[in-house]
């Protein structure tokens, strides 16, 4: 089931790419069908996961590479636990959203949808790999579709941004590869299930702290952590709408997931020592990101920078080392994916109509597009942590979890919530409120079904998680408990 789900999008991608030119318009339908099948699978797994059963479920294991010379085997090993399953679901959901809001792509649609689906396979692979080498491969595989999607279908300095993204990731990947190999050779296995049972590392080529730092560089770039963040605003801003949604919604989570899955659960001793250091970087990301966001004049850049700030909460919650903080960090990944995904969708809808994202040029849009304005306000409120919407649940859990360990740094993090209210409300005030501008006289609201369905679905899920967080939180808690007990 898990393998089928992971590779089904790739099969869909091949089918889309092989469509004859005359049937180009079928591409989007085929892509939608593929993404819906995957979403169905993900929901089925979510429902079927036994919350009182083994940690990893739906495991697929096959030996892939084994050598008589070296004492290790690389295995094809997939499986999910409470930490990864909600992220798999998030990936399937946001990919469906991404397909829908790309409905009107008319530049080489077959290639576009094929790359989008290929991207989904690599993302699902990252979250369900239980073998370090396989994890690394999926982690790298994502670059290829991403590069093409940004550099061909993007806007602005798209080639520069695409390269910047690829180079940053590669730079980190080099460190990750060394870290993974060092871990694997020292432990004699690449199986994450065995690695997370392992005691302190002995006889590694590198001290555990250095391996930890190497992995943190790779995941810190992805998350991102200030000062490794400058690829993010460029890539998010220049990517097409759907890709921004996936970038912010899912790709950043690879960083947070890696930190929890690799750094924390395999090297808990180092994580304990690094806690204060990580919390300091988290607070730096939160405040620095939020303050820089305040100055942004481009709608998409504003939301991109707000992600830097919001992902700081993931690191902050992680630095708490306890089950509450870790659950909060995982929840923050999930809710940020929903909320920022929705924000990017809405900005895309605005841009489709106005062909500008410059905040000073936009004004009074609520008169022309009440639906877009309403949903944007809801998404913005979720982003600034309004209770009853998803963002609040994760933020307050992070704060409650972290405060007992780092009081001052947590309060600095809370300050980020005030700044978030500032940049979101000032944006809403300038773009959507105010007198209707004659320049936007002719533009219309979002009325197409492929605009309404994904946005309403996102709003519904944001409300659901905000009002009944246990739906996801229970699973995350189950996922982080083994990590927390190793840290504790």
């Amino acid at each position, binding site marked *: 089931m898990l393998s089928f789900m992971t590779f089904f999008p790739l099969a869909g991608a091949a089918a889309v790419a092989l469509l004859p030119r005359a049937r180009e318009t079928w591409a989007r339908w085929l892509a939608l069908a593929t993404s819906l099948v995957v979403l169905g699978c993900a929901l089925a797994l979510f429902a079927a996961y036994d919350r009182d059963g083994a940690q990893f479920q739906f495991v697929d294991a096959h030996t892939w590479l084994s050598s008589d010379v070296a004492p290790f085997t690389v295995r094809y090993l997939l499986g999910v636990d409470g930490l990864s399953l909600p992220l798999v679901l998030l990936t399937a959901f946001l990919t469906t959203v991404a397909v829908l809001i790309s409905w009107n792509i008319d530049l080489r649609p077959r290639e576009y949808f094929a790359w989008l689906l290929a991207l989904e396979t690599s993302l699902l692979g990252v979250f369900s790999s239980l073998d370090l080498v396989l994890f690394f491969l999926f982690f790298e595989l994502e670059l290829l579709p991403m590069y093409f999607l940004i550099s061909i279908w993007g806007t602005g300095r798209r080639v520069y941004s695409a390269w910047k993204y690829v180079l940053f990731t590669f730079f980190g990947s080099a*460190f990750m590869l060394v870290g993974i190999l060092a871990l694997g050779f020292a432990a004699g296995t690449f199986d994450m299930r065995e690695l997370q049972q392992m005691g302190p590392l002995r006889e590694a080529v590198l001290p555990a702290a250095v391996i930890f730092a190497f992995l943190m560089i790779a995941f810190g770039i992805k998350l991102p952590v200030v000062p490794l963040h400058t690829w993010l605003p460029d890539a998010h801003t220049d990517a097409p709408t759907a890709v921004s949604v996936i970038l912010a919604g899912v790709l950043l989570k690879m960083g947070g997931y890696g930190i929890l899955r690799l750094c924390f659960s395999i090297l808990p001793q180092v994580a304990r020592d690094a806690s204060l250091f990580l919390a300091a970087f988290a607070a730096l990301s939160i405040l620095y990101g939020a303050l820089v966001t305040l100055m942004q004049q481009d709608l998409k850049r504003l939301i991109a920078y707000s992600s830097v700030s919001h992902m700081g909460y993931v690191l902050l919650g992680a630095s708490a080392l306890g089950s509450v903080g870790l659950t909060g960090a995982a929840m923050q990944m999930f809710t940020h994916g929903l909320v920022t995904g929705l924000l990017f969708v809405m900005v895309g809808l605005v841009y489709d109509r106005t062909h500008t994202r410059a905040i000073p040029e936009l004004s009074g849009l609520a008169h022309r597009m009440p639906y877009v304005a309403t949903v944007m306000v809801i998404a913005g409120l979720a982003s600034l942590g309004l209770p009853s919407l998803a963002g609040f649940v994760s933020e307050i859990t992070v704060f409650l979890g972290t*405060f007992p360990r780092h009081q001052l740094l947590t309060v600095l993090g*809370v300050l980020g919530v005030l700044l978030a209210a500032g940049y979101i*409300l000032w944006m809403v005030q300038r773009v959507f*409120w105010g007198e209707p501008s004659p320049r936007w006289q002719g533009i219309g609201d979002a009325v197409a079904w492929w605009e309404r369905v994904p946005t309403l679905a996102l709003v519904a899920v944001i409300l659901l998680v905000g009002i009944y967080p246990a739906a996801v939180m229970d699973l995350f808690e189950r996922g982080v408990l083994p990590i*927390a007990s190793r840290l504790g």
Partner: protein
Amino acid sequence: MFDPIPEAAAWAIVLLPLASFAIIALASLLSASGVRLWRPAWSGYLTVLAIAAALALSVWALDSAVQSDGHAVGFAPHEWVTVGPLTVDIGFRLDGLSALMLVVVTGVSLMVQVYSQGYMAGDPGYSRYFAFMSLFTGAMLGLVAASSILQLFVFWELVGLCSYLLIGFWFHREAARRAATKAFLVTRLGDLGLISAILLIWWQTGELDIARIHEAVLAGTVPAAVVAYFAGGVFAGAAGKSAQFPLHVWLPDAMEGPTPVSALIHAATMVAAGVYLVARLFPAYALAEEAITTVAVIGAVTAIMSALLGVVATDIKRVLAYSTISQLGYMMAGLGSLAFAPAMFHLFTHAFFKALLFLGAGSVNHATGTFDMRRMGGLARSMPVTFLTMSLGALALVGLFPLAGFWSKDELLAVAWDERPAVFWALLVGVFLTALYVGRMLFLTFAGEYRGGEAGAHGHAPSHPHESPPVMLLPMVLLAGLAAAVGLTNLGHGVEHLLVGALPSEAEGLAAEPHFRFGIAAASVALGLAGLAVAWAIYGARVVPSEDIARALAPLHRLLERRYYLDDLYEGVITGRLVLAGLARGLYLWDRYVVDGIVNGIAQGARETADRLRLAQAGQPQVYGAFLALGIVVATVVVLLANP
């Protein structure tokens, strides 16, 4: 009288207005999608219906609370979320304190919603207005009923959201959208304190349930410093919501919303939330000397300072806004003087006459098209009902015997005399100032000759102001009746008994009891009459023209006109210069040129090195290779260093 209210019926008090919001929102969504089954007028009816039902149930709840002597009617909390050691419950806390608030909120809200049927008629955002009003009322009821401090915080923020949405209701107006954002940001600044306090108390006690926090605090297991910081942090949040100095600046600007919204914000929701929160956590304050002294001082300063601002404001709603801030100062000063029951009693009476005054201001605006008192005058003849009801509300605010304000204010003064003499004298001066601005408002609006009005929201400058329609007058008349009579409810100390019963039994002794003193009552009534007389002399009979006084006291007048320069300080200097132009802009440039500059510099360097070394073909891939190589080189060096 009745059987005790079952828990489901109690929850319905909160859920009915929320359901009304949800139905109107969904109906509006369907309408926007082309399914036009819903008529805007139904939104208004549904809201009135839902809140009327909530009022009926609230009265039942109050009856149950009275039967239990104000003690908590024990509803067990329900689990909402559990993560490791963190358990968040939601529960309905029904006791004397919350039951009284439920009745105040639903009662005032019902009057406001009925009035709005007339006031908002024909507005293009009619449905949206009632959706927000329903949510606003439901959120405030949820706040009042919360049994856990986190649950309270959830509704607390929703109340803030609704006032944001309603202040900015006419979002095309520049002033409205600014005021809305300002209200949200200023109150959220205070909320930083509240969040920190919640984090602190959870860390120290492992509890979020308010009753169990009280147990821990009263048992003395929590260090005194923690209780002080907790109470202080909560007060920061309360000061933001209840517009206490120095976070009061958002409330006068909040006038930009529709007037019935102001009536609700100023009487029963939003600003009442802060006072209620401090009262709810009263045991913690009673044990934290520094915190409660802060509350008393801030309250007294706020009471005086904003009463002075009320004397110079020319916009009738601003006068009332400063009056609200000042009266909230009285309540806070009262809580700070251990006058737990009198402060809440004052909140109770104030809710009715302040709602009445705002509805009256709306009625006046309906007739003249303006809120500027310099363009009113002589309205007593053309608007007799508005004139009489508003005057009654105004005199209740001044605290004249036997109107509502007299009883509650007198109790506050009596306790302050016993507990904190300095606060007592400040509040006594405040009585004179209150009478002065109230008198000034009445004389400018209703006495003399009509000064022409203004072309306002309704399009024409009315040459002959006319009385408002019955649907607007009816709530005003009902509220006038309450403003006159509601003070008598505590004659047998029934309300006080009810409120004190809500405190944990160990804390009941901590609240000070008011003792009636004839001298204090006589002095405050005399000062009230004196204030009215001075106002009459200046604005009614014009014995001394107000312009001469303004000229004689020019520096003070200018200070008040500029509102103590606090808005200039906050918006211009702190937000504008320091945070935005300074810190944020500095970091923005740093990020763009230094952090990203280094990245691009390295890329450039790598590309040149690669070019020179001819490691790859021409074109971009060399950079990729160079980067991977760079990473591997660094990693290899580290490996070698680690294994000498």
